[in-house]
């Protein structure tokens, strides 16, 4: 897949385990290709002593801060991150379109779920949270 400068792209919302080079806060977000940085051995494979082949194209992608953080105070500010091609899809692609069609609903549902999780966490820590707390103390 080759993306061109200025093209609008979606960062996929994959959640693979291991040495990922795409931060969580950018997954599912929409940005603009700023530059093609060339092809590199795939670090997500290299980290596990694999060949890293085929090489992956690395793109510098620009995001509006206001899009990343809804309460961000300035519409002027931006963020760029270097993202590998297999994490990106053109924003016109079918899955991206679906996501764009119902943004308000999805966000509302997510906020609700988050609030619920927070409320649960306050009153009754989950077993996972307990495990983590124990792990930290050690």
């Amino acid at each position, binding site marked *: 897949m080759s993306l061109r400068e200025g093209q609008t792209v979606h960062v996929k919302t994959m959640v693979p385990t291991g040495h*990922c*080079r*795409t*931060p969580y*806060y950018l997954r599912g977000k929409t940005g603009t290709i700023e530059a093609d*940085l*060339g092809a*590199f051995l795939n*670090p997500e494979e290299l980290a596990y002593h694999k060949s890293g082949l085929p090489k992956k194209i*690395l793109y510098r992608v620009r995001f509006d*801060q206001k899009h*990343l*953080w809804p309460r*961000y*105070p*300035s519409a*002027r*500010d*931006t*963020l*760029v*991150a*270097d*993202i*590998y091609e297999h994490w990106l899809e053109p924003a016109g692609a079918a899955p991206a379109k679906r996501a764009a069609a119902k943004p308000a609903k999805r966000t509302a549902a997510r906020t609700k779920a988050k609030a619920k999780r927070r409320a649960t966490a306050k009153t009754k820590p989950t077993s996972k949270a307990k495990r983590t707390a124990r792990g930290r103390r050690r």
Partner: protein
Amino acid sequence: MSGRDAHAHDHDHPHPAGRDPHAAVEDAETPRRFVLLEQAIRALLIEKGVLTAEAIRRQMESTDARTPARGAQVAARAWVDPDFKAWLLGDAKAAVESMGFDISPGPGLAAVENTETRHHLVVCTLCSCYPRKLLGIPPAWYKSRAYRSRAVIDPRGVLEEFGTDLPAATEIRVVDSTADLRYMVLPRRPRGTAGWNEAQLATLITRDALIGVALARDPAA
């Protein structure tokens, strides 16, 4: 020796009561797990003849010899030489190596230019990627969870805490160095430096300006 009385020589740093100000630096506690792991692996590599203690020492010495002063020289040249600046912004690794700073092997290098309308701030939210081959070891705060998380969500707040006030009209562009490139910021050349040579200009450029949490020093200030 302990306490103030044992301290008769002539200098003026403060001495907390009851503590020997010149105590040897020692590990107070049992070494942590990863320290022990590193020691064990190092001993094994030496025993098996993969590395020598001298090679390790040499590498540490070479790492410590890389300092932000190199970045300052690079930026100063870009300020005085438009062709070099274009080269630096287009192919930073080659430009930097042309000055005799060997940054291979290792990740690529990119330079981003601060202008009147745009200010860059570099962070690595995933770990602590930093142009070590050029600038040396990053400052401790660069690796802190607080900087790594807050630099992306509240860059203006972080800059303010570093004492860097930028006009609201300036675009703040955070550079999250997530992959195979390391970033250095080319700061803006301060006013009142017309006619300065490279060496003079380099004195105005600090590590923090090369990361983007500060501006180049204002010679008038």
